[in-house]
């Protein structure tokens, strides 16, 4: 470590410190710009509330009245042939496609998390807090998700099913 060929290379050390820093800045600035662009303002056409309980979800459609219902997992004995075990529910949340939808998510008891992976959605349901997530779906169909925050004995048995219709 005392060989003079590997000591006192001040110029090289300056260059290989400053240059990577500049490269990182050049990467970070467009990245931050895109990050803020993804947080666009879009006026939703529809608001639905999703309230997590142990161990089911309640959905409220209150824009035009008071439609409120619970969504429980269908036990295996109640499944029809072709149904997905631990994913089907008695009442699905029905949503429109091609319309910006605002989901307001909260919890009545402990932490839960409302997730639909195929729609790119995951939002924590925190008691006393109202979290907002927005999305615009483009394809009709049935989309499944599962509670994504440990919430007790039946955490694995409170799925989310969204039926997207034209």
């Amino acid at each position, binding site marked *: 470590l005392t060989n003079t060929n590997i000591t006192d290379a001040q110029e090289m050390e300056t260059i290989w410190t400053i240059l990577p820093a500049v490269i990182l800045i050049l990467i970070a600035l467009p990245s931050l710009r895109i990050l803020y662009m993804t947080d666009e303002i879009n006026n939703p056409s529809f608001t639905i509330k999703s309230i997590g309980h142990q161990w089911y979800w309640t959905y409220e459609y209150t824009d035009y009245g008071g439609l409120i219902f619970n969504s429980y997992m269908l036990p295996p004995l109640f499944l029809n042939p072709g149904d997905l075990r631990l994913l089907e529910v008695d009442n699905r949340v029905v949503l429109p496609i091609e319309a910006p939808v*605002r989901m307001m998510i909260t919890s009545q008891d402990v932490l839960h998390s409302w997730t639909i992976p195929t729609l790119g959605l995951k939002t924590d349901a925190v008691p006393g807090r109202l979290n907002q997530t927005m999305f615009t779906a483009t394809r009709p169909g049935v989309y499944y998700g599962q509670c994504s925050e440990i919430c007790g004995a039946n955490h694995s048995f409170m799925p989310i099913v969204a039926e997207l219709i034209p």
Partner: protein
Amino acid sequence: MAEDIETKIKNYKTAPFDSHFPNQNQTRNCWQNYLDFHHCQKAMTAKGGAISVCEWYQCVYQSLCPTSWVIDWDDQQAESTFPGKI
């Protein structure tokens, strides 16, 4: 101005984007609209004006706030234990 508000209420679809609350946490948005509705209702009642102009706030808080929260707050108001200032 009253006509504009009535047109706005008539054309209400859902709570629009509010730049006062631009982020994910909309708790305050719900709370503020609930308070604003009751402030408005109290003020209009005191002046003898039309309460219909306050409907906008009611529509917004009904869209945003979980029903259980609204029921709890209404009960608290009835019992005079509501924490907000109206």
